[in-house]
């Protein structure tokens, strides 16, 4: 009898969860300057002109655009990206300043938006001491704490400003880790990228605060193509956070970003993401297509790059933050929690390319699928023949919370020498009924029990997040999970 009752209860709770609202689904009523839809060379030139870019950058964009025309969208992912009409998207949208003379002041509407998102832009309101770069649609709205960081020589600004203020640095590093020829979406981004953050940590500087970028898509029928470039020079350290939200809309919006990271000798970069783009409604309508290319190059010896991601949003996620471990003794890490519900599809994972001797990498991926969602881990660990003494450990676990969801793992391992050790483990199972029963016995409702168990399951990854984010991520996980009981 008990068997029979369960599915009904389960369905009820899942329904409730599906109806739970996406908290960040509001739209800001702000005047926005949007260039007409469509994409051709003129649009690329126009974006470049709007941003007042130098000639070399325009050339870079045009080369990328011409290359993009020769490419086809990749279809190998375990996601169903519908045919995207790239002529039906507007490639540049900027919140308009009310008066030209007040360019430095933030529009109160805009400020309200970020306050609502919990991203205060005024330094005096900040308690946690985190420097924030806020990006709405195609432009950076405001970067906080810039002056204080500048005292240490740390550059933290939007990439458009960096192009103007530090052209040599940007030119030296842009497109070096993710060339525009890398893939379809990277080529598109390179052609039309709008804004994003630029971080440069000079030699020997340990960045005193967390740097953070908050991305917000606001305007309808636009795509967001941000570009982030982080350079940590010798012995530097930085922890960088990225958060994202978008309004609830019935149509899908495209987000194709590039993140490039360069880590020099003995430097360390920690990159954390809490991705909460609008995932679409319970019938799978609307939502963001999150198709991004993230890659870091550990160029220096003893360098370290750590990716931590909590993926709960987006209708479709296609994302593989990777490490190229070129320096000897370099370290790459990837910690991921990907939660999909309703009709979301996530295909995410990492690549660890070991080129340097004695480089090590760790991959911990936790997938949670509920509703009708599909959640895939796709990863590659490659040890080059000359990279002796390398070590990799990979663990990817999947938790299934409904019988209509799917969990998949597609790892690729290539080992080219006899001194390296690579391990891969993966498990897939549903949530342990004994554990739920135990919690029930102690008066904990099934829903809370699932929240507990899942949070425990994801703890290994959560522990890697900076404090401020961990709290948010934990809450986010509980909300996204609400009721998705298996």
């Amino acid at each position: 009898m008990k068997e029979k009752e369960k599915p009904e209860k389960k369905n009820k709770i899942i329904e409730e969860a599906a109806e739970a609202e996406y908290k960040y689904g509001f739209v800001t009523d702000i005047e926005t300057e949007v260039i007409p839809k469509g994409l051709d060379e003129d649009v690329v030139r126009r974006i470049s002109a709007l941003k007042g870019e130098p000639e070399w950058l325009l050339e870079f964009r045009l080369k990328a655009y011409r290359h993009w025309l020769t490419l086809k969208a990749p279809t190998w992912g375990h996601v169903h990206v519908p045919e995207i009409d790239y002529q039906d998207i507007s490639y540049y949208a900027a919140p308009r300043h009310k008066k030209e003379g007040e360019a430095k002041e933030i529009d109160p509407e805009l400020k309200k938006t970020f306050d609502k998102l919990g991203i205060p832009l005024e330094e005096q309101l900040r308690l946690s001491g985190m420097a924030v770069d806020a990006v709405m649609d195609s432009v950076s709205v405001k970067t906080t704490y810039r002056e204080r960081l500048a005292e240490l020589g740390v550059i933290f600004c939007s990439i458009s400003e960096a192009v103007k203020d530090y052209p040599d640095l940007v030119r030296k590093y842009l497109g070096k880790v993710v060339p525009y020829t890398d893939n379809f979406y990277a080529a598109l981004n390179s052609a039309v990228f709008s804004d994003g953050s630029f971080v440069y940590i000079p030699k020997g500087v340990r960045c005193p605060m967390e740097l953070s970028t908050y991305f917000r898509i606001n305007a309808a029928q636009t795509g967001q193509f941000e570009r982030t470039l982080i350079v940590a020079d010798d012995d530097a350290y930085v922890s960088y956070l990225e958060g994202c939200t978008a309004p609830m809309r019935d149509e899908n919006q495209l987000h194709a970003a590039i993140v490039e990271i360069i880590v020099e000798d003995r430097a360390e970069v920690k990159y954390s993401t809490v991705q909460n783009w609008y995932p679409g409604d319970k019938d799978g309508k609307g939502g963001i297509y999150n198709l991004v290319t993230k890659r870091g190059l550990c160029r220096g010896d003893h360098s370290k790059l750590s990716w931590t991601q909590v993926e709960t949003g987006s209708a479709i996620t296609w994302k593989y933050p990777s490490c190229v471990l070129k320096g000897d003794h370099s370290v790459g890490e990837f910690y991921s929690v990907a939660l999909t519900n309703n009709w979301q599809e996530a295909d995410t994972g990492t690549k660890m390319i070991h080129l340097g001797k004695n480089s090590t990498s760790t991959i911990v991926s936790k997938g949670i699928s509920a509703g009708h969602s599909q959640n895939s881990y796709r990863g590659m660990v490659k040890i080059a023949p000359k990279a002796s003494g390398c070590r990799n450990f990979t663990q990817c676990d999947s938790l299934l919370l409904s019988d209509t969801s799917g969990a998949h793992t597609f790892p690729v391992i290539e080992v080219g020498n006899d001194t390296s050790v690579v391990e891969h483990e993966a498990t897939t199972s549903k949530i342990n009924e004994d554990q739920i029963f135990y919690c029930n016995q102690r008066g904990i409702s099934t829903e809370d029990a699932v929240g507990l168990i899942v949070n425990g399951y994801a703890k290994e990854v959560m522990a890697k997040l900076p404090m401020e984010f961990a709290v948010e991520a934990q809450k986010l996980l509980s909300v996204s999970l609400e009721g998705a009981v298996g």
Partner: protein
Amino acid sequence: MNALQQYIDLFDESRELIEQQSPELLNTMRRAAREQLQDARLPRKGSEDYEATDLEEVFAHDYGVNVNRLPFDADPGEAFHCDVPNLSTCLYYSSNDAFHSSATAERNIGKVVVEPFSIAAHDYPELMAAHYGRLANMDDPTVALNSLLVQDGLFIYVPDGVVAERPIQLVNIFNAALDMMVQRRLLIIVGKNAGIKVLACDHTQSPDYHYLNNQVVEIVAMQGSSVDYYDLEESTPLTRRVSSIYVDQHEGSNVLIDGITLTNGITRNNYHVEVNGEHAETHLLGMTIASGEQHVDSHTFISHNKPRCNSNEMFKYVLNDNAVGAFAGKILVKPGCPRVEAYQGNRNLCGAPTAKMYTKPQLEIYTDDVMCSHGSAVGQLDEEALFYMRTRGIGLDEARRLLMQAFVADVIEGVRLDALKDRLHYLVEKRFAGTLSNCAGCLAACKGS
């Protein structure tokens, strides 16, 4: 370049002859294969599912094809003893692609049917028509090529309720004195509650010629049946092998497929299992010991189409010198198939700086109440274990050999024929000692101690 073209051209030229010599059923399939191959290309290295192996290259060599079905004079029974001590089998030979039965073949008579396709097509037309080519997927150009050129094959049928007393041993020998490609084909149908064990071993008599074995095996395991298929390869560096084994499992059936490669040139083994009945059990085992320029690539795919079935997979590779190993395994659990338990393991020892291992274990799960896992590891022998043994006075080489033997032992332990198990332990020991290829007296290199 299109390596397939030479064989298609050959077929077009000698179509009449080939069709005359074959049962009509094979010809029907042949026509479909010809259409399938019209614009087909063999996969190149680096393409999806062929990360390590270049089939275009494998087929590019100018192999002879025995279109005229000329008999080769050597009597395999005379020239050859593939002997497993203490194992009494019904022995069959295929020399290149022609089948012969031996004196011991009659032992199962009246119960188990073992016939070439040419005879089976008359004796069991319905069974042949129902199952020949049903499982093999012609989207794979190598399978289509086999269907295009095959003129005969071996049909094994175990009627309902019959459990074969003795294993069937099929010894495949290449003994042509010229470069040659053969299309071997096997159809095994095991009736309800029936049981059979098949031991197939591939040997090459001459190390000087290029041989290519492009084989397709189809196994149908009916309700409650039990099937063991052991596939042992001991060939030469110039031998190429592309093998595709397709299995269709019904309710409560228990199937074990064991692929063992001791010596070879380039080998690609595909295992494709469709589990179409509840409570079915699947065991896939694989063991590869490779050195020199050996290249072994195994692909497995188990599709769980019904609830409550189990599968177990373990592939182990020991690679030395310039050997290349590749393993890709996929477990699929279809929607609405709860209570599936599926385990997959792949463990590899890389014993030389130039040995390469590619591994790709995959899970694709569409239902929640399952227990599935895969594990994959590439590494070396445990330094501490080696040290321990050396402190006990065991030399480094000996210690390495012992540990390597222990490493593959659990795959051998999965064998469900005691005599064969002992034999494999012995062969593996000899293989690690490097003396396997020096076995005097028997060209097939596995004559007994």
